[in-house]
Every structure is written in structure tokens, then in C-alpha cells.
């Protein structure tokens, strides 16, 4: 799609806040292997470079060009490099106060989860065992995602209303509760991407499928005596009523 117009002159200046990759490089943040996989996934192992656009930029001429302020307002996604993280900072101590008033009622006083809302703390080291517990601390590979998600989606009842300092503080508090950062650690645009999350390197970003290889056998595929029922949903008593008004499975309904 790009060959024809490719050229340094059209590339936005390095470090432009809106190029999706303001960090100079991912060294120390994303392993070379993962970076390679991501690039290959994105451009289809290079086939993309040979693709040709159907039309030139601006061909239809429909729509406006957004202003820098409009773009900045809606460009909230923070990648592992930390590109786009705003100015500001926060500590676990400041985060504890905000957490108590804005988060604890759903996620529990210590991030242990409450009322079936997700736990934010715990499970580090449990993932390979028999009862793995996936939390921000045990499972999430990048701390930038913690900042990004709290900023875009929490608190649940009033998403995207926290100020950058508050989001930094909450990030510091949640990471500290998980034992990932020390209590005096200061979260800011520089420090958050550098946090080494415990599960950083356990993700395989290259889909290995197909991993099952059934065959379309038609006759005598298994011996009839080996066909045994191992579970039957009718005995489980977990199914809501499937006729009449929607069943909320509440006692006394």
C-alpha cells in the first residue's frame, strides 16, 4: 500500500506525540523477540509493504482534519513504550487515599476483590499451579496497561474522570500492594514503562493454532464401549429457567 509514497520527508518528526510510538526505542521494555513478532503480525511478515492503496490520501476529500487538541483529547491509548503518558506523578501513599474512597467498595480494601468484582492483588507465582489467580500483579505483562486501563475505564461508575496525578497514584498503590514496586516509588511517564511486571515474558503473542488435529472420520471412529458420559448438565443445577420471563436466579423470585 505504501511503497510509492514512502519516504523520510513524509514521516512525522521522531517523538511526535501522535505517531503511536514516541519512545525512541523499546530497549529494556519489550524483548527483541516480542517486538519482532508484533512487527511481523502487523505487516504480515512484510507482505504489507507490497500492498498498494486503492486511492491516494485525500482522494474523496470527505471530512475535516482534526485539530491537534481534538486528537490529543481522544488519543488516550498508552502502549508499552509509554508514548502518550501525560505529565504528572503519584505515590502509593496518595493512591491509598483515592483508592479508599473510589475503588475499595468494589475491589476490596486490599485489592482482594469484593462482591464478585475482580481482585487487583495476589496470585503472583500461582499461574502455573493448580489454582491460578489472574490479577494485575500476577498476570498483566506491562504496567502501562494498568495506567491506561484505570485512566480509560475506572472508577466503573464514572470512567475517565480521574486526573493524571490520581491515575499515577493509583497505579503506584496497586503495584505496591502487589509487591511489584516499593512504597516510595514514584509513578510518572518515565518510570511506569520501566516497571518489570512479574508475568512480562510469559505471553506468547504468536498464535500457534491449529493445535488440534481432528480428522473427519466417518465410520467406526471410536469403539462404542469407549463412549462414556463424563458429565451431564442436568445434574449440575446451574441453569437458569429457560422459558418465561428472564430468570435472574434470585432467591424467592
Amino acid at each position, binding site marked *: 500500500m*505504501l511503497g510509492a509514497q514512502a519516504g523520510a520527508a513524509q514521516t512525522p518528526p521522531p517523538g511526535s506525540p501522535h505517531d*503511536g*510510538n514516541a519512545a525512541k526505542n523499546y530497549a529494556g521494555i519489550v524483548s527483541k523477540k516480542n517486538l519482532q513478532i508484533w512487527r511481523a503480525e502487523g505487516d504480515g511478515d512484510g507482505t504489507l509493504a507490497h500492498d498498494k492503496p486503492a486511492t491516494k*490520501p*485525500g482522494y474523496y476529500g470527505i471530512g475535516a482534519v482534526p485539530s491537534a487538541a481534538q486528537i490529543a483529547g*481522544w488519543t488516550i491509548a498508552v502502549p508499552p513504550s509509554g508514548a502518550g503518558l501525560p505529565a504528572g506523578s503519584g505515590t502509593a501513599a496518595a493512591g491509598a487515599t483515592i483508592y479508599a474512597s473510589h475503588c475499595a467498595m468494589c475491589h476490596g480494601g486490599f485489592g482482594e476483590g469484593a462482591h464478585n468484582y475482580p481482585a487487583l492483588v495476589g496470585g503472583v507465582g500461582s499461574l502455573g499451579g493448580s489454582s491460578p489467580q489472574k490479577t494485575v500483579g500476577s498476570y498483566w505483562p506491562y504496567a502501562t496497561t494498568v495506567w491506561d486501563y484505570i485512566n480509560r475505564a475506572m472508577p466503573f461508575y464514572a470512567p475517565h474522570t480521574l486526573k493524571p496525578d490520581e491515575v499515577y497514584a493509583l497505579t503506584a498503590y496497586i503495584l505496591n500492594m502487589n509487591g511489584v514496586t516499593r512504597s516510595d516509588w514514584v509513578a510518572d511517564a518515565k518510570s511506569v514503562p520501566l516497571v518489570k511486571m512479574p508475568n512480562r515474558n510469559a505471553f506468547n503473542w504468536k498464535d500457534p493454532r491449529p493445535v488440534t488435529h481432528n480428522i473427519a472420520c466417518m465410520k467406526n471412529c471410536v469403539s462404542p464401549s469407549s463412549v462414556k458420559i463424563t458429565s451431564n448438565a442436568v445434574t449440575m443445577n446451574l441453569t437458569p429457567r429457560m422459558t418465561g420471563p428472564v430468570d435472574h436466579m434470585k432467591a424467592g423470585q
Partner: protein
Amino acid sequence: MTKPNRRDMFRLGAAAGAALIAASGRGARAASPPGAPPADNAWSNSLGHGVDSKPYGSPSPFEKNVVRRYVPWLSPTRDADASMTPLQDQPGIITSNGVFFERYHAGVPQVDPKAFRLMISGRVKKPLLLTLDQLMRYPSVSRIHFIECPANGATEWPAAQLNSLQLTHGMIGCAEWTGVLLSTLLDEAGLYPDSRWVTATGSDGAHMNRSLPMMKCLDDCMIAWGQNGEAVRPEQGYPARLVVPGWQGNVNVKWLRQIQVGREPWITREETSEYSELLGDGTSLGFTWVMDAKSVITFPCPEKPLTQGPGFYEIRGLAWSGRGKVKYVDISLDGGVNFQRARLDNPILDKCMTRFTLPWWWDGKVALIQSRVTDETGYVQPTIVQKHKFWGADPVYENNSIQTWQVLASGAVNNVQLS
């Protein structure tokens, strides 16, 4: 006018429950509704309602059981939950807009189409800001695709748990989507050689976003405003959503507001904490985008037992693949020992539901019925035992295993798993 008598009322009431199943058998007579031949029915001797009474139609009141349902113990809150399509009542490949499954993370926003804006930004030559009217002026396409949540069937990983087709398979819907190819808009904005990734972001409270490789974006992704003959429904992302054919439902971002282009993926919460797969050894799969081929028998099923005794029935079902077209569906009546090929209905489309049928003379004995799809890549739908070998003991997503329904002599149908 004929009023139902007490005996008829009893029969009608019983029809909904198991009593009728038990009472039926060859020769058992179906309950006759009041006014059956030779008399006219009441509606044959009176006027129906006129064109001014229902400007926007709705299903017959007798179809009131056909609704989305959910599993109350799955999620702490209804605004970050899922509800399921009643596949047992979907006759063909198109899912009715009113019962198309729902999944969202901060409730359904009511987006004012006048205030809608779509921004194309990031690593593009000329960023774009479009109103809905402007978006709709671009060249458009209309295509029929399924959208399936990768958690469809999640409850069935450890064991057969929910005795329902709707709740085990209903996190899927298939619709005709009309809109602009994403490639058209990306060309209009202009890409660089290293514009490799896109993040699509919704305008809902969750600001839901996912990273998508440019290869897929330029292949067949579209920004849809039309769904089955009307505007995309609010639950499906009104006024415009991303459609990423064949890929996990979550990437089909709804209430779309931004397409941001970059060099690397963003690694969002929805592609790490959720919609990734933790394997038994503690490692995880990220970016498991494609929905592998899957099929299920929609009649009979737990919600639709065999109520009229032994004899002829048509086994019916739906099959689909995120990698292309459905090639074959094979049906077993004996728990996977022998299979016979089902008939496929046209149309057979790319990344779209395909309907299959098989005539069946039921002998009234217990049967273990299954369907197994093969897609055009040659991929064959696996058994749950085969799935567990790679995906570990307790996964969450991508359960596309062969479903077994146990048909009892009574005609009742249960969800079971086999060794």
C-alpha cells in the same frame, strides 16, 4: 367467539413443561387449540389491526419466550456482562437484531448520531474527522458475517454445566453488516510503510480498545452502520461499529470513535487481562484472534426436545468458521462412533453461519447426537478431550469443541460430555 374450555387450557399450560413430553408417543394427539377445523378460529371472524397501530413491528406475543437470556452467576454487574442469542429459535443464518447477543464493559451508551465523530489519527499522512453523514458518503459494502465472543462456551470447559443451547452457544450472532471498508478510510488518510497496527476505541464508558494488525485492517474489516435492514442497534454499537470478520467478538469495537494508527500494538487490558489464554504450564497466549470452526445442533436441543414420539425429525443446526467457508458438516447419532454427512443450505459464505440439516427417523431410543464441521482450510472441529490436551484443564476462551446432546427415550435432551 370460541373460548378455550378448561380441558384445553390445561393442555396448553402443560405444553410448556415436561408433562407433554411424557404423555406423547406415536399416536398421541397434539393438543388441539380452540377453534381448530372445522370451525373458524376467532381471528378468522374478525378484523385484525391496521397499518397505523404498529409503526415499528415486534414478534407475535406468542413468541415472548424468545429473548436474550444470561447466566446470573457469571458477572458481578449487568453492565459488564453478556447475554445470549436464543439459537434454538433462530430458523436460518440471520440473527434477529432484537435478540443478537450482547457483550459490553460499561453498559449500552445512547450515542447521539449528530454528536458522533469518527477520528482517524496517529501514524497517517492526513488525519480525518468524520461526521456520521460524511462516513456514510464513502463507498460501501454489505456482507453477512457472524460475530462470536471467544467466551462462548466458557462454562462448558470443566464439564457439561448449563443445560441449554442458548447459554452454551448463544454468544454469537450473524447479520448483514453494511458500511465502509476500513481500508477505504485508511487509504484516504494515507499510511506509512511502518503504519503496522491500529487501535480501535469505543466511545462507551469503558473506552473499549483493541490492537489490530494492519494486515487484517486492510483485508476485510469494515465500519458498519447498517445491521439487517436497519441502523446498527444500540447494543451492537449504534451508530457505527467495527466489524472484524471471523475474529473474536471483542475486537469488533462498538460505538466506535477512533481509529488510531501506530507502529506497535498497545497491549490493552482487553488483550491481556481478558481475551488471552492462560495455559496449564503458566504461559499465556495473546492475540488469539481467529474464531476456529464450530458447529452445533440447534434442533433437537435442551430447549427443543422431541415432543411427538418416535418417527421422522429433521436435525437442524448451524456451523461457522473464522477462517473462511464451511465445507462439510457431519452428524453422529451414537456419540461419535459413526458420522453421516449433513446437507448444507445456501448461501455458504465466508466467515458466516451456514445452516445444515439431516433427516432422522428416531426409533425412540437414547441417542448421543453431535455435529462436526470441517472448514475450507481442512480444519476439523475437535472433541472436548482433544481441546483439553493443548488448552489445559481450565481455560476460558476458544471452546469450539463438538457438542453432544443426549436424547432420552422421553424425548428430553440434555447437555453431556463424553470421554
